[in-house]
């Protein structure tokens, strides 16, 4: 069954890839919602909304792929994690309902527009917080017996999971701010710069806090990062974080349009890689490995066929959609 082992690793990378693409695409999208209360002017809000209106739907589809793909490739992990993360998952879904409908609803009403703006901001914040908390809850370990989750329905709530929740809110907000730097102009962009500075400082504190706290969760994490010879492989990660941060600071000082957003994505990629280093080969830390959770080989092969043809195609037409709506978004004329 050696080929099945390889397949499972490939699938772990595919699911990790789908989740990362989701974070890349929906991160700034949710970040805009988190920043919404800081832009009370209707004209600004219209512009902010319109920078993502044509693509938000595609962005969230990656979340469906992450969930559906996990059920298909690692059904046991999906079956254990979802009940363990029950409350954050439901909160995330309800948050996404509110923010998703706001894209259309706020244009359909004068009277209740503020209500839908609030739904957009609140929904984005709740969804992000829930995703961050879910991440922390996975990292801190989940109580499994047999093939089932065996903990209570509040096990996810700990100081650590709250920390990762807040960290993700800061991170998405930074992505949102740098996205606005890229997609808007004038006074709106100036404020986005200003916010990016503050959020970058906060994000670095958050990365630091999570990095310091993680090794205390379990001895395996400490060994993974600090034991010899692992440290040769893990040390480049914090070094790269420092390098990207330096570039990001320079890009913000130079008031560059595009670099801050993409460098922030770089920070996310490095944090994500760090997460992968901590977790691998577990999919439910300390209890279920990717091989234990894996679907049989014929399910994995059947899907691999589709993924290898369709994902490049999807990335292609998604890029095309972004290209069609490229450039800065301006406040419009002829409406009030």
């Amino acid at each position: 069954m050696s080929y099945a082992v390889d397949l499972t690793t490939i699938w772990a990378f595919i699911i990790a890839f789908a989740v990362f693409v989701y974070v890349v695409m929906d991160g700034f999208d949710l970040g805009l919602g988190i920043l919404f209360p800081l832009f009370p002017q209707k004209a600004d809000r219209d512009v902010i909304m319109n920078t993502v209106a044509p693509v938000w739907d595609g962005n969230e589809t990656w979340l469906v792929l992450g969930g559906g793909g996990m059920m298909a490739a690692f059904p046991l992990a999906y079956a254990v994690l979802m009940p363990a993360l029950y409350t954050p998952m439901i909160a995330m879904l309800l948050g996404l309902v509110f923010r998703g409908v706001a894209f259309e609803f706020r244009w359909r009403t004068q009277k209740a527009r503020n209500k839908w703006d609030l739904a957009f901001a609140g929904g984005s914040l709740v969804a992000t917080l829930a995703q961050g908390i879910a991440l922390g809850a996975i990292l801190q370990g989940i109580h499994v017996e047999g093939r089932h989750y065996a903990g209570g329905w509040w096990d996810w709530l700990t100081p650590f999971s709250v920390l990762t929740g807040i960290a993700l809110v800061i991170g998405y907000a930074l992505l949102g701010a740098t996205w606005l730097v890229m997609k808007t102009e004038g006074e709106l962009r100036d404020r986005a710069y200003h916010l990016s500075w503050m959020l970058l400082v906060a994000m670095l504190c958050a990365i630091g806090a999570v990095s310091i706290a993680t090794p205390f969760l379990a001895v395996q994490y400490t060994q993974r990062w600090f034991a010899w010879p692992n440290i040769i492989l893990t040390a480049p990660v914090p070094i790269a974080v420092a390098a990207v941060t330096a570039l990001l600071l320079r890009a913000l000082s130079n008031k560059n349009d595009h670099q801050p957003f993409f460098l922030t994505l770089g920070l996310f990629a490095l944090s994500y890689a760090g997460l992968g280093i901590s977790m691998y080969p577990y999919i439910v830390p300390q209890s279920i490995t990717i091989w234990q959770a894996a679907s049989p080989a014929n399910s994995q092969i059947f899907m691999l066929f589709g993924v290898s043809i369709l994902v490049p195609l999807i990335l292609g037409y998604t890029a095309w959609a972004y290209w069609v709506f490229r450039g800065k978004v301006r406040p419009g004329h002829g409406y009030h």
Partner: protein
Amino acid sequence: MFEGWDAVVLARAQFAFTMSFHIVFPAFSIGLASYLAVLEALWLATKREVYINLFNYWLKIFAVAFGMGVVSGIVMSYQFGTNWSSFADKTGPVIGPMMAYEVLTAFFLEAGFLGVMLFGLERVGPRLHFVATLMVAIGTLISAFWILSANSWMQTPTGHAVNADGQFVAADWLKVIFNPSFPYRLVHMVLAAYLTTSLVVGGVGAWHLLRDQHLAGPRVMFSMAMWMATLVAPIQILAGDQHGLNTLEHQPAKVMAMEGHYQSHKDGAPLILFGWPDQRDAKVKYAIEVPKLSSLILKHSLDAPLAGLDTVPRENWPPVPITFWAFRVMVGLGFLILGLGLFSLLMRWRGMMYQSQLLHRFAVLMGPAGFIAVLAGWITTETGRQPFTVYGLLRTTDSVSPLAAPAVGSSLVAFIIVYFAVFTAGVIYILRLMAQPPHPGEQGPTKDLPARAAGITPAAGAAVGGAR
């Protein structure tokens, strides 16, 4: 809260609630996406302004409905894990890949081209825009293909084996995907979506014709919608009959519940038109029945014997009253739709299509009938296959998550509150859009949005700004 409640019942209530809300939107958007593609094609072919006006009019409504379909759909894709984790673990290797293919072949296609369809006409030009519309329409149909295949496998499982961990695994993917009930269910549901949309479009057209029978847009949409209802309703009744015969072969207990046949009949079973199924006493009270007609419909012979639920172990009985009544609602509405189609054909023949207020009133009344019929149909098929999630193999009670009732109950309450608040608002916005007739020079969703600058250079932006 919810201590002492049955967590299985709460989980089922939650799935039924979130699913019922969700199904309404795809049922509408499958049909509407195809209708939009037809309208745009007609506009491209004839350049008649009425078609692009209608396209933009329905596009705004599509945008709102589609958004609600997306967010309620994301909820569904996680319900399997949150509330039905044992089901997810056991069927993930079979159902999971089908849903992954739905995401890869359909959801991305719809979502990827939706932005261009809604906002991109001026940016990409009419031809490429039509391609985008077509992709969205095709995406909705591909989505129906996969999700109905997955559902059908749960109803009539074939092509699988069971591994050492007790999981279903695929032995033959083609047999899994093209399982016995799938072709029937697919045809029945896609036709239902088309009928649902045609009734909404026809209802809206009729509503405006009742005010002014000379409006060009409402005339065209009403006529198109009535052709659709006239042609598709009889086909749908035939397809439904075939689907029923397929169910009789593979899930006889469901048909017994639909028919209210608690007892077996040796020489010709009666068709119970109406009555009150009593599950405890195992009989239909106050039944009004036509002798031997059920045997004629199901077996094509008056005296054919027909087995009843008395041949099925009691613990495998579906809840007959719900299945029985939901089925009658669906069939009743189906024949009313047929009646509307025939009536419109008569009026068309007499040249009274745009004048007959009776026809218009009837059409307005039937506007929401498709939604009710779709819901009733799904309730029939989903309660009729109880008490199993994978028919005959995995019981519903063995499918749930290891969650206590308070967790499931609280989330159910949260879904009910949020869905009623959000989707009521959405339906009001859609009705408001429908209350306005399509105008000459009707704009798509872009009208409300700020102008976008095309390209990176200010000059290109100014050019588009000028073109608006």
